[in-house]
């Protein structure tokens, strides 16, 4: 009887899914997801949409940080370029959203390419500081290039239209977001079964060794930045259509930190981890907010204390994760799954 990871050919080793069960589960999950807008209210759809966007953004960051080992805190800037790029291409050039989002994502890639250049010389904290510069340059540009971005006053984005129907509700934009989030996950999964993906991992594990083996550091480091910022560009473009108003405040450094927290909590170098992290980091503030709101219903006078306790709980959750499960939610998931599949003979 075959048991565990029993692989006898390269083909089976390369398979995306070991058994049929996850495929079925995935299909059921997607079908259920397709019917969610029929039942969910605007609020929960809004949360789901933000999760979908965060999944794409987190995947992009995980490709760069988790898989290639190039630390970046410029992710909020890349999101901003994607978002503003989409909005400006649509309002000023009159492009439909399905052209504007890919174009803006390409633009973001070009941006990522430029700000990825320091990675050829810098590593670790030094690279982080270099990407920080990207962040500040971008936000400065957004605030001060008022003729295009409307600066701090905020840029209104008209609803996208598809087949003459405006995508003006959370339910309609939901399908657009998930029509991009699902392929994004699959593409990433595939990426790491190719030469490019393996090169990324080799660079992460030991860049000198990788270059000795013939991996061009120059090409692949920059490629990691390009791919990563393409994802961020798509996520940004979706943000523009989801919130329909863009502010420089929506892309603060905290957003970049949030995304880093997503992939750390979810699991660095794990695709499932990016998804889990995105879900967790989007849901946690909402759950805390709902708790805070219901608690203030009972103790209205304690609103101030409860509202600030929210931030403390948030910080605490991150610290506890880092301490007790550095490999993140993805690792917990794997442990849980193997416990049940191997039960009662878990060895």
């Amino acid at each position, binding site marked *: 009887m075959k048991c565990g990871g029993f692989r006898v050919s390269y083909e089976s080793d390369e398979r995306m899914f070991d058994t049929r069960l996850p495929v079925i589960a995935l299909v059921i999950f997607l079908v259920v997801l397709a019917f969610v807008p029929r039942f969910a*209210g*605007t*609020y*929960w759809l*809004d*949360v789901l949409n*933000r999760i979908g966007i965060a999944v794409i953004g987190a995947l992009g960051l995980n490709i760069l940080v988790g898989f290639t080992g190039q630390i970046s805190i410029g992710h909020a800037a890349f999101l901003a370029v994607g978002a503003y790029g989409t909005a400006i291409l649509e309002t000023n050039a009159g492009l439909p959203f399905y052209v504007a989002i890919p174009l803006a994502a390409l633009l973001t890639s070009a941006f990522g390419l430029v700000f990825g250049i320091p990675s050829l010389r810098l590593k670790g904290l030094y690279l982080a500081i270099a990407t920080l510069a990207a962040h500040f340059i971008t936000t400065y540009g957004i*605030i001060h290039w008022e003729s295009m971005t409307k600066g*701090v*006053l*905020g840029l*209104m984005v008209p609803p996208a239209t598809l087949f003459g129907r405006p995508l003006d509700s*959370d339910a309609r934009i939901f399908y657009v977001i998930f029509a991009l989030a699902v392929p994004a996950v699959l593409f990433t999964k595939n990426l790491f079964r190719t030469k490019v993906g393996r090169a990324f991992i080799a660079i992460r594990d030991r860049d000198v060794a990788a270059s000795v083996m013939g991996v061009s550091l120059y090409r692949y480091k920059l490629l990691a930045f390009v791919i990563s910022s393409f994802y961020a560009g798509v996520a940004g473009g979706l943000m523009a259509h989801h*919130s*329909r*108003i863009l*502010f420089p*405040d*929506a892309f603060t450094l905290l957003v970049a930190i949030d995304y880093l927290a997503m992939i750390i909590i979810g699991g660095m170098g794990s695709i499932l981890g990016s998804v889990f992290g995105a879900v967790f980091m989007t849901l946690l503030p909402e759950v805390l*907010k709902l708790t*805070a*709101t219901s608690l*203030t*219903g009972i103790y*209205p*006078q304690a*609103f*101030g204390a409860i*509202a*600030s306790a*929210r*931030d403390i709980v948030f910080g605490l959750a991150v610290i506890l994760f880092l301490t007790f499960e550095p490999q993140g939610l993805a690792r917990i998931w794997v442990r849980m799954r193997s416990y049940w599949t191997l039960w009662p003979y878990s060895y």
Partner: protein
Amino acid sequence: MSGVHGPLVRLVLAGLVLWSLGALPAFAQAPIKIGNLVDLTGPTSDQGKDIAQGRIDAVQYLNERGGINGRKIELVSVEYGFQPPRAVAAYKKFVDNDKVLLVLGYGTPDTEALRPYITKDKVPYLSGSYSGHLTDPRQTPYNFPGGIDYTSQIRIFMNYVKETWKDTSRKPRVAFIYADNAYGRAPIEAGRLYAKEAGIDLVDEEVIPTVLTDATSQLLTMQKKDPDFAYINTNTQWVPVVLKDSYKLGLKTKYVVNNYGLDERTPSLAGDAAEGAIGIQDVAFWGDNVPGMKTLMDFHAKHHGSDTHASPYMRGWLWVIVASEAIKRAGPNLTGESVKNALESLREFDTWGLTPPFTYTNEDHRPTNRARLVQIKGGKITLLREVTVDRDMKWIGK
């Protein structure tokens, strides 16, 4: 047969009657939900803490007196850190999840961002933002700024400059210093136009960051233009930075500050640098001699007498008072539209004397055209004079 069933039927009937008796008041007492959006952790928390406390206290006060038309009020509170995206999420939660009747909104960036949603959802939105962009019911029928709009305030500033200017050899020179966000910028465009109209030289504009740690470089640039007066449009916790840096540099410019920038805390925050600064006051200060103040102070002393509050606390009460009056007038049929119409029926409505009387009409959502000018003298806030600015329809929505 009936002999057997009779008592049972009667029992059931009695039960039904009792149940309906119990159920009817319960139905009538379903609370009225009001959204409460505040910033407690962001750059305007100097206002938000007291505003939140004021709203919570006012609602508790009303509930202790039986609520509105026999129904209790329930505040659904969300803290959003002055970040517009979080306010949009909170708004969606208010409208969709909590089905609030009305929202007590907060800052200008978020309120202006929400305009299209508010108009579409028909949710009366009484905001802490007094932006002039919210005053035109033809464009924003459900937005109600909760005080004298910023555009009227900047006009008050320039009227004051004109009145006090005695030198006939030249026009007075003014400068605008404003925060780099939608709140700071809200009245600037109108201010430029009004300066031209009033024959005042607008010589300089300085943009300061929302969170301000140092204004020296901006003030040095301003010094070269040598304005006689400068109008500061930012928050109470950041205005002292400007005043102190100006004091340090020895500038001669006289400062006038808008309603959110100067209150009873300013003298202790800015010390000597605050001397002579003028503020436009929209709402009563703590302890002012106005009719409603005793109620507020008694309530405060009874429930949390140990802490202190400034004018934003009065604003919290004010907006609940205005909202509750509208809900009372809207009667039993409570919808966004009926509450909006009720708000627009307010004529010279007495806000317990906390502000000049409020009037909203279906043509003009500027609640009042009156304010007070106060000045800091000898470390104390003193009343300078009451001012009125005409309700010129030209400035509506600007």
